[in-house]
């Protein structure tokens, strides 16, 4: 079972001079076992998440069972693509379904791709090298959680727009688990 996870660093910011919210939870549930991680304009991202939450409820009633992660990602992608000129938000959709297990989809600007892992947001540039080097397929749950926490910690250390606490949601066939890791409990690295 390859479990794919997404975490999210937290700090809501409207412009470079003002920190509006230091502890905004950027992981939004779309369904019981499907979550999305918000980045970019908080207003745009939250609105997309709410709309897709509603559309997914309707869809799951129509098909009579839990929706697939790919369906949720497609709904997000449809909105992102249709309004790509007006919106500036990137949502990463991740979850677990019976058909394909754990999955992660990136939906930037209307492109839908399934990936083993995805990073997004302003802090993501700083950790591309780290995630390329450290990710390996077939990690178990603890290793994957540690990988996500390390990645978030490194990004928060370098990016001025990220910080605060780390929210991690773990989704597998047994259920969904939410965890908050406070700033002073995050791992530290060289130079800290």
């Amino acid at each position: 079972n390859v479990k794919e996870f997404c975490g999210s660093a937290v700090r809501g910011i409207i412009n470079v001079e003002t920190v509006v919210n230091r502890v905004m939870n950027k992981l939004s549930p779309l369904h019981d076992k499907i979550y999305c991680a918000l980045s970019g304009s908080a207003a745009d991202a939250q609105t997309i998440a709410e709309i897709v939450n509603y559309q997914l409820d309707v869809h799951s009633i129509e098909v009579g069972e839990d929706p697939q992660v790919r369906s949720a990602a497609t709904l997000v992608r449809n909105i992102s693509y249709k309004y790509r000129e007006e919106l500036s938000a990137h949502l990463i959709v991740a979850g677990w379904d019976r058909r394909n297990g754990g999955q992660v989809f990136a939906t930037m600007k209307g492109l839908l791709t399934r990936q083993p892992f995805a990073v997004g947001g302003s802090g993501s540039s700083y950790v591309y090298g780290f995630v390329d080097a450290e990710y390996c397929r077939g990690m178990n749950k603890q290793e994957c959680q540690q990988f996500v926490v390390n990645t978030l910690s490194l990004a928060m250390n370098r990016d001025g727009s990220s910080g605060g606490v780390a929210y991690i949601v773990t989704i597998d066939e047994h259920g969904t688990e939410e965890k908050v890791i406070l700033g002073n409990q995050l791992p530290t690295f060289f130079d800290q």
Partner: protein
Amino acid sequence: MEKHCTDSRVKGVSTGTTILAAVFDGGVVIGSDSRASVGEEYVSSKTINKVIQVHDRIFCCIAGSLADAQAITKAAKFHLSFHSVQMESPPRVMAAASVLRDLCYKNREELQAGFMTAGWDKKNGPQVYVVALGGMLINQLVTIAGSGSTYIYGYIDAKYKPNMTKEECLQFATNALALAMGRDNASGGVAHLVVVTEKGVEHVVVPGDKLPKFHDE
């Protein structure tokens, strides 16, 4: 097909390169990629060496316009060789870094370049100095610069340890350059690495197909 400008995720001026310098136990490793690009579309050279020797055991790397780099280092080499004749001893790494910093600061209006100077001297051993864009000089143990460097900040923070051995440091530098070249389209080609120790200078060139590969390649 129209070009879309995505948000710039590079701090300050985007300079198409990746350069890095790191101190290990007994020496320094200084390295760069080898791509020279004009605008964002044309690669004018695939094998340019951006690690420039300014004295026997002092090298510098410049992120920025390569024309500026060549002009500055030519001036710096002259200053340093004159300085070492006057002092009757090889120059200190700090002296080389100061020379470059003065050139950078005096011409900061016209220049678009960030420097790093690394080397070995008898007084302080291996050192790495960074001259930031405006002319500030800092001594650090490990430093990266250039457009490709944003992608490896996390990797450097996680993987650099003080007092590594030479082999570990070379592997660290090669991995970091390979990761940056993998994500940045303005960096690429081969990895040029120079190892400077008390005993001397060693050039290592890692061609593109021998660079380490990571999970998605």
